[in-house]
């Protein structure tokens, strides 16, 4: 797993489903995709992402409070994301990743990475 970038101010690039409450699924795979995931109202939106190996998720915080997106197994961590900032994580290995915010552990999500 690669944290491609630290906190950035790129908010709206290559939008692919931000704002969806239902699980976000990237099915067609004609190469790596950039998938937007929001953090808003102390929740991950969507709370379940289904992507392909090689895809990158851009975690963007819309809350005034800082958050993280962190692998419960310890494999990756975005680090602190302030309001309006983003952090990109590229998922190379298939698997299911339980995600939480280190600052507010009640916030949880799941990233399912399918083979490319």
């Amino acid at each position: 797993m690669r944290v491609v970038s630290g906190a950035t101010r790129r908010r709206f690039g290559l939008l692919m489903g931000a704002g969806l409450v239902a699980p976000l699924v990237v099915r067609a795979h004609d190469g790596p995709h950039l998938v937007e995931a929001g953090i808003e109202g102390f929740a991950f939106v969507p709370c379940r992402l289904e992507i392909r190996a090689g895809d990158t998720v851009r975690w963007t915080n819309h809350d005034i409070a800082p958050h993280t997106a962190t692998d419960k197994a310890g494999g990756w961590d975005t680090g602190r994301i302030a309001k309006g900032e983003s952090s990109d994580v590229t998922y190379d290995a298939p698997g299911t990743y339980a995600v939480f915010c280190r600052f507010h552990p009640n916030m949880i999500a799941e990233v399912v990475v399918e083979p490319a």
Partner: protein
Amino acid sequence: MIRQTMIAVALAAATPAFAQDQMNDLQIAHTAYTAGQLDIRYAHLALAVSENDAVRAFAETMIRDHTAVNDAAVALITELNVTPEDNDLSRALVEGAAAKRAEFMALSGNEFDCAYAANELGYHQVVNQTVEGKFIPWATVEPLKALLSDALVTFKVHEGHAEDMVAGLQCAS
């Protein structure tokens, strides 16, 4: 639930009469900022005294989140080029918090944890009622109203965390 309600009532009684008279934008900004700073001070005290993991985690969250909210408030004040206005409520909050910290400093162990947790629950309940029911409706400057609304989302989560903390400590009623 009954015990939590009693705690809230007791703390509301101990908290200065919160915003009885309508306040202007500059007074609201000053009071909201002050309330955040006071909660940060409570949290620093908790980190200095408590050895309870849940209490310490809560205190760290208070410092992190209230600092973020107050940083946003400073940014807004700077952008608008205004000066927040000290007022009776801000001063009463500061005096009340000083007295409360003096109480806390005489405590240790579980007694401190329970007193801190109960105070955090009551404090957030009173602040949230005031922000939602008074400050947001009273605010006339849209960016201030928006900031208060954003902050309220955070403060309500804190209130929920405080409820969990109180329940987890199993304090004597």
